[in-house]
């Protein structure tokens, strides 16, 4: 109670002008929210991509010519893709110098609106447990638990839990485990050992509502791991060129392709957010600065009275500056909360609609983004409040009271 009444006066001023305070607060909040949301979306995309590619384990993915986009969609969003190429292509790929190892996968799709499948339109990937890269981390984590032919693995976003049974084409599988999250379509994929998939196909004629025909001599994709460049292996782009030159019936997907595609998919939204943030910040500075310059002009008499009652110049400076800063701080907090809340609720929807893999960034990265957005908000207040505060503190008390009467 005995301290100079800076915060009492600030609170009273803000309460006295609620509409003005809310408008100024919102101006800052929009800038902070846009900056924070843009950074978090981009960081989430990069994290998910890194996890997805690490999970994929492959340096290159070989698919039938012209179907690289469908494959990318399957990896990014889990949208099933079904196509085949002869298994003999694998030997051709292996013959290219610099290839360390290969693994094949067969892409399948569960039946929609069929009782013989647990869920419709699911992306099923038949793989060879001994050689596949994608599920290798899980297999290595569970060495005493080899995968049986009627056991499957699921991506992190699938609802069933280990031990649950799943039916595809009338064949019953048991879920052995779930893979770690990648934020991509791999989280919505079921991985079936090739032997189990072949048996499922054989029995589908009797058990399923539609027969699944699989040839043992067909695959959908060939995953390629290159020799490390440090050991003389080729760069990915060169190996891809070699493969496509020597095997004209295939296309090769490189990790960069996924980065570029997802960046393109997200670019529209990011451009919008950058535009909003980029224009909202200077607008907030201008709005705050002008409003408080006018406010100081209106409150000249009040300032004069405060000086007359014992308030020093430094008190008046603090009064005006802290009021602007308080609004900027509150705006920053509001903006971060709004953006955080919207991302918390709708990040999955945004990712799915834009076909972009997405995971929440790590805490340090989130903290940095929040810190940056908050600093921008506070700096808006600091910049805007400086001149009005200086101007107010320099008013001579009697002059201020006299001018305040006009």
């Amino acid at each position, binding site marked *: 109670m005995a301290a100079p009444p800076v915060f009492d006066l600030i609170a009273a001023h803000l309460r006295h002008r609620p509409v003005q305070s809310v408008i100024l607060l919102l101006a800052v909040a929009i800038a902070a929210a846009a900056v924070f949301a843009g950074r978090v979306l981009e960081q989430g995309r990069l994290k998910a991509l890194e996890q997805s590619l690490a999970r994929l384990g492959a340096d290159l993915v070989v698919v039938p010519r012209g179907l690289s986009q469908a494959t990318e969609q399957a990896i990014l969003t889990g949208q099933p893709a079904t196509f085949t190429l002869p298994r003999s292509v694998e030997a051709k790929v292996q013959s290219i110098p610099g290839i360390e190892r290969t693994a094949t996968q067969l892409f399948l799709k569960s039946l929609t609106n069929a009782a013989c499948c647990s*869920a419709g339109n699911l992306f099923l990937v038949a793989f060879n447990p001994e050689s596949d890269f994608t599920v290798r981390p899980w297999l290595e984590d569970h060495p005493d638990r080899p995968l049986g032919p009627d056991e499957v693995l699921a991506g992190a976003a699938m609802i069933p839990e280990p031990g649950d049974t799943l039916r595809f084409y009338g064949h019953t599988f048991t879920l052995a485990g779930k893979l770690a999250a990648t934020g991509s379509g791999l989280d919505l994929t079921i991985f079936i050992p090739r032997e189990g998939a072949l048996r499922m196909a054989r029995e589908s004629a009797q058990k399923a509502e539609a027969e699944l025909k699989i040839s043992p001599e067909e695959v959908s994709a060939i995953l390629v791991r290159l020799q490390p460049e440090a050991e003389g292996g080729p760069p990915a782009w060169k190996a891809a060129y070699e493969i496509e030159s020597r095997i004209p019936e295939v296309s090769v997907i490189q990790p960069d392709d996924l980065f570029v595609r997802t960046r393109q998919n997200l670019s529209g939204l990011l451009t919008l957010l950058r535009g909003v943030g980029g224009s909202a910040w200077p607008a907030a500075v201008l709005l705050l600065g002008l409003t408080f310059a006018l406010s100081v002009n209106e409150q000249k008499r009040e300032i004069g009275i405060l000086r007359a009652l014992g308030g020093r110049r430094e008190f008046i400076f603090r009064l005006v500056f802290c009021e602007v800063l308080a609004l900027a701080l509150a705006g920053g907090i509001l903006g971060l909360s709004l953006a955080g809340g919207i991302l918390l609720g709708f990040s999955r929807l945004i990712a799915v609609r834009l076909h972009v893999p997405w995971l929440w960034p790590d805490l340090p990265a989130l903290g940095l983004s929040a810190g940056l957005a908050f600093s921008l908000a506070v700096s808006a207040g600091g910049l805007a409040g400086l001149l009005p505060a200086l101007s107010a503190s320099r008013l001579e008390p009697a002059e201020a009271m006299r001018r305040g009467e006009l």
Partner: protein
Amino acid sequence: MSRSLGLGILALGIILYFTPTRLFPVCGFPLPPGTEVGLLAGHACYKTLRVTQGLAGLTFILGLAALLWTRPPIAWISSLAAAGLGVLVILTPLAIAPVCKMPTMPCRLGTLPALVILGILLLAVGGAGTLLLWKRHGRATGL
């Protein structure tokens, strides 16, 4: 103040009503009125839709009551009830009438978070209104 509160609750009621059918539709596309039964019957999100619409109707009525009857007890009770409805709106897609479990379903991607956010807003508006009106009413009556 009671009028502003009433308007706020009323507006939230209207938004809530159109959320599962138009704004963040449970099937991913806007549902023309009258088609909900045909399109959604048997799906978990159908129940979510109906319960939400019911809660929206109640919210609308409470908002109207706070708008028209500004006397302290009625406005105060309306706010308190609106806050309670906010809690129910939050719980509807999560527990009372849960949306489909599949993570890619539009009801889970869009409708669920939208209802949670609207529920939080309703809770905040109702709660704040209850507190402010109780303070004012309490001061006036010496409570």
